């Protein structure tokens, strides 16, 4: 019997510590599959964040570095600039990337670092026990917004992909979702494309993956997927927001 879906060698085969139903695991698998499919496992360096996926270094079957909270894009920059032959990716949560790591995210994108960022947006700080993230939905109850996120108190959720899309530096910016099987099929394509752009030396590539956190949302995995579909997707539209082919990159404004 041939295995038509078999576990990727891009992951180490150990049980993972994620909660039942948590889509971190699915996203790990897709990234690992792409790395394997593109044949770059032996040149890949991944960077794990601080967040539930902090020990992703135990799961990905490639060289890994563990970054300080929010700084993964800086590490990626450091690695890629001195070893452009390596395939460098970061794997980051929304607290990590969209809060403490805002500057590193925006600036790495703006410099056009030839790295791939996998951004797992679960609208919450998972690891530390469910505090509000910049991506938390209006009205969403968290341990630090016990009455629900009040947009008059701390603003609206940040749409990182749209934010980065205003930068003129070419980039591949896409948002996908991991909440169900159909969206996973699309997500996989986006991740593949993101790594391809890196391998071609074209641009910075960034995949935002909407993800569920049943534990801190206080929902079953199925309910959590529903909530993501009903609440998050309307606010976080899916699709390619920017590709490096967008618009002519004219050199009109060169100075002096």
């Amino acid at each position, binding site marked *: 019997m041939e295995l038509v879906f078999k576990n990727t060698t891009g992951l180490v085969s150990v049980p993972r*510590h994620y*909660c039942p139903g948590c889509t971190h695991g699915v996203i790990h698998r897709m990234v690992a599959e792409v790395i394997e499919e593109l044949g770059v496992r032996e040149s890949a360096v991944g960077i794990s964040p601080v967040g*539930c996926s902090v020990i992703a270094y135990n799961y990905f079957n490639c060289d890994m570095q563990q970054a300080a909270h929010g700084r993964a894009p800086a590490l990626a920059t450091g690695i890629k600039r001195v070893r452009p032959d390596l395939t460098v990716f970061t794997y980051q949560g929304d607290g990590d990337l969209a809060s403490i790591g805002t500057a590193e995210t925006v600036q790495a994108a703006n410099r056009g670092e030839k790295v791939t960022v996998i951004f797992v947006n679960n609208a919450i700080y998972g*690891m530390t026990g469910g505090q509000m993230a910049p991506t938390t939905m209006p009205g969403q109850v968290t341990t630090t917004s016990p009455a629900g996120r009040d947009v008059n108190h701390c603003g609206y959720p940040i749409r990182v992909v749209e934010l980065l899309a205003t930068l003129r530096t070419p980039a591949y910016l896409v948002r996908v979702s991991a909440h169900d099987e159909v969206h996973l099929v699309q997500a996989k394509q986006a991740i593949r494309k993101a790594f391809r752009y890196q391998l071609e030396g074209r641009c910075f590539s960034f995949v935002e993956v909407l993800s569920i956190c049943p*534990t801190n949302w206080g929902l079953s995995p199925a309910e959590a997927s529903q909530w993501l579909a009903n609440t998050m997707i309307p606010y976080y539209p899916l699709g390619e927001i920017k590709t490096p082919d967008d618009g002519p990159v004219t050199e009109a404004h060169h100075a002096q």
Partner: protein
Amino acid sequence: MLSEVTFAGFGGQGVMLAGKILAHAGLDEGHEVVWLPSYGPEMRGGTAYCNVVISDKPIGSPIFAAPAAVVVMNRPSLDKFGSRVKPGGLLIINSSLIDATSDRTDIHVVRVPCNEIAQGFGSAKAANMAALGAYCGATKVVTVDSVKALVKETFGAKPKVLDLNYKTLERGWQAGEEGLAAAKKKIK
């Protein structure tokens, strides 16, 4: 020292709450108390536990290499803590989920079917009350009234749940009392 106990189980089995109620009861009865949880990511999926110390003097360390008593709600907890009980100490095992037992002969082992007791009154969710009851019944460190008052504070808003917890607590108490008596005979 009146009491030094570790409650251990899966996250979700309510061991933290059981410990907190015990500590509260100790405080209400005028003792010094400390409740110390395990915390952080290790709680996720793994075992959660808390230590409770009740004493008549200021409490030094709430961390014990060898606790006087341990209540284990699941198998991994038995594996982790069973061997640490102080000689002459007490080990309460939730026999509903743990087939294994301890082969130690230097401690008192009491098996209480916590989930079954609670299920019998309506829901296995109250298994932690059986465990708490068993520990208190065996040690008499606090009175049943103190504990009940706190159970009422916790579940008072929902009469059905309160009733379930009361009954489970009482049955656990009895099981603890009887179990220890039996164990004492064994050990002599």
